[in-house]
């Protein structure tokens, strides 16, 4: 312990979790154990305000490491980013307690759990929300927790996280949560000091993250640690740092922290934030403020006089105009609205418009996640009740899926997530809804289309869910994209920028052009035995280019029908299906 204390103080400033991304760096990091604070002044209790601070600092630290965590994806595909998903989940959690006057830690924990639950995005976000749920359950009715209660709450958190997953996999965030909580129990038995317990938890979380590649071979091959586990470690580390008195400021205003690049459907510029506030001061220069605000966004409206100026602007970055406003005077009536959400509401309301009177009225509604305008139209034309925009890089939250489920006019609803990383949020939405909901766990757009086609207007919910799942399984899918980083995976050495092909979710082929890779992917799929090949071309591919690929495929497979659909999906040059 003594030696570690020395190590700890000496290396205190070198330890940044940003280095923890790659395995080699990770191994070089010294163990952190024990507290450097005055041990005569331990912190024995944490109330609601204390937990609020911890959550806030965990969020701030996570935000700082978001990009590093995102880069830990095993597959070099532009996929639902773990860092972003966990951050958005944490933001939703903090948003719930931000203005809460509650003192009791149990109540604050409950609110955090609720916020995380509703805002959960991606599988890592859902598991994080389960962790908070377990934590809150253990602290029900507690005004302020001591070290033993804290450890027990962490244990319950880990247990709940495992329960939330149908087939728990070791070497993930689950392992990190469990191992960290086990150490918490040991530490709490020997010390009443919460900071000491937290320090032990953080140290174990870090070690546990380091061990994830030895538990999950796919991580070892890709040379990364588990992204979700890393995210959890970073949150805990942020909490520890703030409890030691370190100030962790968020880079931007909380509302601004919603990262637009993650929320925006690609190619849909202009859905930023709608920002309004009033600046009060002496001798305000309206003209100057107008010029400054206009440079920060669109649709700027600045009116007022030397003592009060009303500002209204649309900007992708709400922090900038607000900070500026605060620099020239004092602010009041600050309103920040996410236009992306409004846009989605608009999409939702549009989807609810009455359909053709001849439209068959099935008793089973469908909520379908789809990226890109083309695919949205495809699903709508095939009778989707509601299409929720989302997919590879934009995982809809539990709340967004829940709202979609609730707005479907039927009592029975089937959710098609069409992406592996959205299935858990869909399951959460199912659990939260008062309706009868079934999730058909489709992992790709062609699977979703196949499943939706199998919807039988005469059959009941459960029968439909079964039949649709079978239909989804009967289809072969290839996804063609560009590698976002260099990686060694599944026996393939891929360089950043190379075109890669995933066949049924597995990285199988690579090449120089989307056309080459598409043709190679079909060879892997054994399409000779199948009847129809469908090409969904993404926004990066012109209709002519898709047509040329179709001709090439038709030449190679004269017995198969080849169809082209303008999917307009971002990131993926082609999605191919064969059935």
């Amino acid at each position, binding site marked *: 312990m003594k030696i570690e204390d020395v190590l700890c103080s000496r290396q205190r400033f070198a330890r940044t979790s940003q280095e923890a991304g790659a395995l080699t760096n990770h191994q070089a990091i010294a163990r952190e154990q024990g507290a450097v604070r005055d041990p005569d002044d331990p912190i024995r209790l944490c109330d609601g305000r204390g937990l609020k601070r911890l959550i806030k600092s965990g969020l701030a630290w996570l935000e700082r490491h978001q990009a590093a965590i995102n880069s830990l994806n095993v597959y070099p595909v532009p996929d639902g980013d773990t860092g972003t998903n966990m951050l958005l989940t944490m933001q939703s959690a903090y948003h719930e307690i931000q203005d809460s006057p509650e003192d009791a830690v149990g109540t604050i924990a409950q609110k955090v759990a609720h916020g995380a639950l509703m805002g959960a995005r991606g599988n890592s976000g859902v598991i994080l929300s389960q962790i908070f749920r377990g934590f809150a359950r253990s602290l029900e009715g507690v005004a302020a927790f001591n070290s033993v209660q804290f450890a027990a709450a962490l244990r319950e958190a880990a247990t709940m996280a495992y329960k939330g997953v149908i087939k728990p996999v070791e070497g993930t965030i689950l392992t990190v949560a469990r191992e960290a909580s086990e150490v918490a129990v040991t530490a709490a038995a020997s010390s009443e000091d919460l900071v000491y317990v937290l320090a032990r938890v953080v140290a174990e979380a870090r070690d546990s993250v380091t061990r994830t590649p030895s538990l999950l071979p796919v991580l070892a091959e890709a040379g990364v640690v588990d992204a979700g586990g890393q995210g959890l470690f970073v949150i805990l580390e942020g909490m520890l740092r703030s409890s030691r008195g370190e100030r962790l400021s968020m880079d931007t205003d909380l509302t601004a922290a919603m990262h637009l690049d993650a929320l925006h459907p690609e190619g849909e510029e202009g859905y930023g934030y709608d920002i309004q506030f009033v600046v009060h001061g002496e001798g305000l220069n309206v003209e100057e403020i107008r010029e400054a605000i206009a440079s920060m966004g669109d649709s700027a409206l600045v009116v007022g006089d030397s003592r009060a100026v009303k500002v209204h602007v649309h900007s992708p970055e709400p922090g900038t105009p607000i900070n500026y406003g605060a620099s020239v005077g004092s602010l009041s009536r600050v309103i920040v609205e996410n236009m992306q959400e409004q846009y989605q509401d608009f999409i939702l309301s549009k989807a609810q418009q009455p359909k053709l009177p001849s*439209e068959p009225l099935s008793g089973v509604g469908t909520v379908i996640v789809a990226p890109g305008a083309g695919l949205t139209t495809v699903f*709508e034309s*095939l009778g989707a009740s509601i299409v929720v925009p989302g997919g590879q890089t934009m995982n809809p939250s539990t709340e967004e899926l829940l709202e979609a489920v609730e707005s479907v006019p039927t009592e029975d609803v089937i959710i098609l997530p069409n992406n592996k990383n959205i299935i858990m949020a869909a399951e959460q939405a199912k659990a939260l809804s008062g309706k009868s909901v079934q999730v058909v766990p489709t992992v790709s757009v062609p699977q979703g289309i196949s499943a939706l086609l199998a919807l039988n*207007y005469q059959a009941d919910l459960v029968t439909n869910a079964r039949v649709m799942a079978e239909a989804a399984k009967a289809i072969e899918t290839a996804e063609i994209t560009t590698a976002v980083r260099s990686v060694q995976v599944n026996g393939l050495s891929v360089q950043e920028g190379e075109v890669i092909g995933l066949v049924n979710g597995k990285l199988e082929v690579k090449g120089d052009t989307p056309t080459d890779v598409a043709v190679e992917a079909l060879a892997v799929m054994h399409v000779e035995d199948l009847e*129809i090949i469908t090409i969904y071309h993404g926004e990066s591919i012109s209709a002519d280019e898709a047509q040329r690929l179709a001709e090439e495929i038709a030449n190679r497979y004269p017995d198969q029908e080849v169809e082209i*659909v303008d999917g307009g999906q971002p990131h993926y040059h082609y999605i191919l299906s064969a059935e």
Partner: protein
Amino acid sequence: MSMANVRVITDITAYLEPDVIAQHQITVLPVDIRFGDEKYHIGSQDSWDRFYQRIAKGPAQLTAATVPASVFQETYSRLNRETEEILVIPGSSKLSQAYAEAKIAARGFLGRCRIMVVDSMSASWGLGLVVQAAAEAATQGRPLDAIVRLVRGMLPHIYLVFFVERLDYLERGGRISPAQALLGTMLRIKPLLLVEDGEIVPLEKVRTRALAIEKVADFVAEFAAIQQVVILTSPLDNEINELVGELRDHLSAALPGLHLPTVEYDPILACHLGPEALGVVVYEGL
């Protein structure tokens, strides 16, 4: 009091053998179908063929099939000389105007002749089945009310299920939107359709012929009891007819020993399904 037997009227879309028509004195009325200015008066095999050639060209300007009220009136007057009870069983009211016209025409006979018009909610072989049963009962001298009860009892046990390869006729009939038709054609979607309460409703959609045939066979295999299954195929000479053998193989595997006749579907169904549909009629029996 000796009363003449009930006389039965149907339209040309009912699948009936000529000797059954003759034996039971069934009146079979021709059906009028129009494509814009082109009129098809479908009453003989010759006019069927000409009509089917037109169907192959697409549904532009196709208007609803009908048997005009005037034709029903003339028929009622003629039959009224021999009987005071007439049962009219035209094709489904959802698929043609004949049912509505038959009812309009019956109004003028109030007090002179009892005319019951029953919505068959069926077509083709299914329609023929109930018409034949009604006519046989009439020949046996059973009263009109009893025959109507018999017919109504049979109707819920007749099922028609199809898949179609061309979506333009479903679009023309307002059963799918133009956007769905466009996309569906692009994706080669073959909707599986069921005739329910006389209306054609979508059951589900498939993309391959193999799966479509399998689904039709699955539909049939789910019945606990079956008295008869008839394969309904296109009256045109096209690729669909080449799939009949495959469908029969699937059905034979599911229902060993059952005789599986093949019948061409009628002109009114052709107006709704187009020239490329394949399916079955299932009669469970009473």
